[in-house]
């Protein structure tokens, strides 16, 4: 059994960590957090030059042609560094949607632009409150023209193009939904930035008014494609989440070793030690579930739907748990703007919602486990 990343993949992880430690310090994250820039353009450029943006994109389409396991180790480091760039929207959502369902021409047009860092992109799925569901897609598409409002759209204000879920039928079935691709620079859209829990990853409202759009995948196949995209993104986001969990745990551990109160290191108090031990337990369970998700993703296994949901739930819980308790270990200082704890707290809680809430994925997991048990 070799249920681990290869030496080459671990080397890539080290390389990504070294790069991000240099180029994505907490200070750099704060530039975006404080609203001085919508995202870290220099970092984005650097990620493209390192080949990280196109690591899972085939060479024919301008990528490195490595694979999803390579993307997983990079994702972990992106989460660890709290990178303020539109990586997940562009790489996990838009690129994966095109890889799954894009025509050759669409792949040729957009994937090289993603790999080179020229195009930022996103998935426009949500329309106000609610989780991923065909019922919640109200935006219409008729004769290649979109009308409706998407909100929140991650990184929507800086995206060059978007993959959009639209209603093309009214049967009440999954087949009512189709996917389209929209060049957001071509007009027909109004984009408005929104204030959000985690300012290092922007959210937007995009209004489509008689907007010309090109179909992605066959008509009526939208929901089935989206389900696959969300499963893949769930695994990739889980790696960001375990990277963030580990970093939050380390911050708490380091502070507990450094801080003296009552005449001793606070890390010598069992109340603090046990809190940190529990964070370690969550982070370890999440890592193991995520590895299984990575295996399923990289081999396109039949187990992917269940593995993705398990990774998503476990990693969401772990990151929320570690980020929250990291503040608790820090005490009052953890609640200052100056300390970095809140950046992970914000990211953890924003990520918990991005692909649908925890309860949504819990529901998905049970459905998928039942399906497997029935089979």
């Amino acid at each position, binding site marked *: *059994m*070799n*249920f*681990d*990343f*290869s030496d080459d993949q671990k080397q890539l992880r080290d390389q990504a960590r070294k790069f991000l430690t240099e180029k994505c310090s907490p200070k750099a994250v704060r530039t975006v957090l404080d609203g001085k820039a919508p995202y870290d353009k220099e970092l984005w450029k650097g990620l493209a030059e390192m080949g990280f943006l196109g690591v899972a994109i085939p060479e024919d389409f301008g990528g490195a042609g490595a694979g999803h*396991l390579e993307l997983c180790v990079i994702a972990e480091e992106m989460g660890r560094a709290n990178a303020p760039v539109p990586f997940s929207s562009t790489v996990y959502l838009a690129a994966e949607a095109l890889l799954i369902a894009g025509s050759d021409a669409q792949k040729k047009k957009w994937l090289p632009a993603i790999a080179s860092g020229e195009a930022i992109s996103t998935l426009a799925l949500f329309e106000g409150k609610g989780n991923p569901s065909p019922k919640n897609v109200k935006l219409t598409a008729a004769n290649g023209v979109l009308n409706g409002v998407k909100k929140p759209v991650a990184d929507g204000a800086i995206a060059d193009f978007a993959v959009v879920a639209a209603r093309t039928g009214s049967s009440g079935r999954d087949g009512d939904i189709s996917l389209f691709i929209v060049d957001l620079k071509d007009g027909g859209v109004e984009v408005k930035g929104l204030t959000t829990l985690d300012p290092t990853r922007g959210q937007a409202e995009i209004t489509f008014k008689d907007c010309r759009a090109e179909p992605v995948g066959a008509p009526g196949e939208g929901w089935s494609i989206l389900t696959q995209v969300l499963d893949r993104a769930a695994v990739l986001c889980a790696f960001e989440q375990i990277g963030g969990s580990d970093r939050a*745990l380390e911050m708490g*551990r380091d502070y*507990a*070793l450094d801080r003296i109160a009552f005449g*001793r*290191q606070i*890390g*010598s108090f*069992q109340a*603090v*030690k*046990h809190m*940190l*031990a*529990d964070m*370690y*337990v969550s982070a*370890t*369970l*999440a*890592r*193991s*579930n995520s*590895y*299984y998700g*990575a*295996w399923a993703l*990289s081999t396109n296994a039949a187990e992917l739907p269940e593995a993705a*949901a*398990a990774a998503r*739930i*476990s990693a969401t*819980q772990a990151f929320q748990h570690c980020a929250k308790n990291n503040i608790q270990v820090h005490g009052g200082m953890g609640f200052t703007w100056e300390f970095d704890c809140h950046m992970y707290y914000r990211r953890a809680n924003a990520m918990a919602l991005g692909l649908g809430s925890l*309860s949504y*994925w*819990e*529901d998905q*997991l*049970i459905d998928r*486990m*039942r399906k497997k*048990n029935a089979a």
Partner: protein
Amino acid sequence: MNFDDTPQEAAFRETARKWVEANAPKEFLAELSKSSLGRIRLAQHDIVDVGKAWQKKKAEGNWACLHWPKEYGGRGATPIERVIWQQEEGVYGKLTQPFQIGEGMCGPTVMAFGSEDAKRRHLPKLAAGEEIWCQLFSEPSAGSDVAGLRTRAEKKGDNWVVNGQKIWTSGAHYSDYGLLIARTDPNVPKHKGLTMFFLDMKSPGVEVRPIKQANGMQEFNEVYFTDVVIPDSQRLGAIGEGWSVSLTTLMNERMSIGSRLATGVPEMFEFCSNLMLEDGLAIDDPAVRSKLASWAVKSSGLKYTSYRAISALSKGERPGPENSIGKLVSGMMLQDIATYALDLQGAAGVLTGADEEIVQGQFQQMLLSSPSMRIAGGTDEILRNIIAERVLGLPGDIRVDKDVPYNNIPTKGR
């Protein structure tokens, strides 16, 4: 990343599989395949008798304690081969329960500290199930603080004379030998005055009394020692070195990877899939689904954590400390699951009879037994300390009794 065996591993697995197929006591397959939380019982037979027969057969085929050296009854197998064997032995591995403490803890300690004579005399018998060993560490006033133990061993000529009491000794009533840690010098700080021995459990002055547990069962014992004589040749390690010898014992237990702990999740999933509530099946209820999902990912997280450890073994690496989380997670989960399973039964949840219509009191038994899972073999709190100190590198607790001679340390309670 894959779940495949290396060619050597695959060949070893094939050999093991064929042997199990040809030799396992298939008449117990159905009974052993049933889910069992806690101790295994067979309807018509004593588990110790059936276990001894299986262990003897395994020893004849060189499959008993296979990771031990050949001259001491093993096969000289690698750690990953041991894991593969456990996987292939499958449910029949449940029959080895009476030998687990001997194989996992006592044997390795004898191997590390025993005389050549003791090793040759006892280890092959231990491996073959001819001798059952128990472990005599815990005392009424020394549980988590095991180094605070009181049982005295005093040197009289070439022998030691032991007086005191041990508790929570599983299998003491059917054990032939015991691994005993006792205080040999009460005038030095507690960790420094301990010495390790092994003794014949049939020695005069040894009295085994079963403990009636909080769940109404009797699985553990108290063991009383009254002027029990142990020859000095049965001392393991130097006088006063008992604490470090005991760490070897406990370390060996933590090295045993791949033994899956019961979590209660498959039982709970099945239960919720079949339980009809007022508004439909329990598994269709959003609150039930949320809890089930959280437990399911803990359970799968433990499974894949052990796969990561097995992978490390396969590469010849020492597994990391991740494995210390197994009992901590599964113990709490068992208790939570049992509590919730009763909640779903409403007022009828209070009934424990085996003839009750709802899963025959299975979760009620689980509820009553689960506290022990969070205490035995290291309490949840001790496990968290181990993770905090050995994995995360946090400082140890400030110990007020560290440099105080044992006989000046206040003690109270049991």
